[in-house]
């Protein structure tokens, strides 16, 4: 692996630029990035003794994480895209290995740390992490199917790092402010549906 420090290859540059600026062609750039490094799937399967499916999951998860960091411009380009993506992928594989080898059937088994918590200081992160339970996330996934297609679409676009203005354009809302209000109402709806589940925990 030889590369010139701080110089990003042309293809990587195009992908980074496209993901960061061209909302309409985002899917194209996502697929470019995905295709370019998907040899890692087979490597991960061999190296970490994972099934192909698990390695494919880890790689897809890594690509999604990388895409979001490119869009938020938190990737500073001090390493190559390949190094960055490989590092995330290895961590995802290790998480899966740990998950697969931990005792099955444990109640309230802790989930791997949600990416969202990484922006919190360690002490606060531990407090919140201890309150998160796998069963709750499973229940949320089920309830997501019940809050209506429009709510689900807005929330998923939001999760995919489209900002309120982009979502307004995609869905046909008048303004970003309307999207924000709608989005928060959808989150509220989901939370309401979870009340019964949480009370019974």
């Amino acid at each position: 692996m030889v590369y010139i420090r701080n110089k990003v290859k042309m293809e990587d540059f195009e992908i980074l630029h496209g993901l960061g600026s061209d909302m309409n062609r985002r899917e194209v750039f996502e697929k470019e990035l995905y295709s370019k490094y998907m040899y890692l799937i087979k490597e991960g399967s061999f190296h970490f003794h994972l099934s192909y499916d698990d390695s494919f999951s880890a790689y897809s998860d890594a690509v999604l994480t990388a895409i979001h960091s490119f869009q938020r411009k938190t990737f500073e380009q001090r390493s190559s895209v390949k190094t960055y993506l490989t590092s995330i992928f290895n961590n995802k594989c290790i998480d899966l290995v740990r998950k697969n080898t931990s005792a099955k059937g444990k109640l309230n088994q802790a989930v791997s740390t949600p990416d969202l918590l990484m922006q919190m200081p360690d002490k606060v992160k531990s407090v919140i992490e201890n309150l998160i339970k796998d069963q709750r996330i499973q229940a949320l996934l089920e309830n997501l199917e019940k809050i209506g297609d429009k709510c689900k679409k807005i929330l998923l676009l939001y999760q995919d790092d489209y900002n309120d203005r982009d979502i307004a354009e995609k869905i046909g809302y008048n303004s970003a402010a309307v999207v924000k209000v709608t989005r928060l109402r959808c989150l509220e709806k989901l939370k309401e549906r979870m009340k019964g589940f949480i009370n019974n925990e």
Partner: protein
Amino acid sequence: MDNNLEYIDDYFQNQLNSQQRQEFETRCLSDKMFAEEVAIYVSTREALRQNLLEEKKKQWSTLLPPEILTDEKASPKTTTDLHEKAPVKRMHLRKWLTLAAAACTIAALFIYPILNGDSAREDIQEYVQNELTISSTMDASRDSIQAGINAYKNKNYQDAIRIFGSIYASNPADQQTLKYLGQAYLKNRNFEDALKSFEELSQRQLRSNAGPFLMGITLMERNKPGDPERARILFQKVVGENLEGKNQAQVWLEKMN
């Protein structure tokens, strides 16, 4: 609408200033009900992320070429044609002895450097076993890196890799963590990953770069064909450019030469 929900959403969207963020974080520690609401929000976002990931996997699975999908080993070829056995020729004893002597000499020429190289290799194995340590950080605020160091010291190298890898992924400028990550890979015998980390480290502009030295060690540990020679070149570079590990590299070079 629940005002807390918007407040929590703004925090994770980086819409709050630094003072507001501190207040939010303090409240998480002191107000259990509020912490519970934050946990529900994070759980919701995590569920959304998992759902989104499933959708992306469906889209991206169509990009996979057949050769990545298959994990078949090459089917053994069956030989249907039997080669005719060549007739055995008788050899004169003198000729046989001459050939045997020549073979022994050639074998000795190959084995001798290997034996000497093995002595260097044993030294390096001992070095990896006993000397490749990580000191505790003096900076108490870096809890996460200390967790990685503790895992490393307790020989939980998988955990150390996960922790260091995660810290490095969010801050690729941190060459110290990169070095620790490489060491954890090496201790865990993930030689390819160790080499990638140390090669990355070697590219950094540092006054005294440990990358080449650690790459040399990794190659000697991996010991694939060609590795000892590559390690020798790296140790020569370490000595020649006065890099970190120079004295030790000098000792090993003498044994390898």
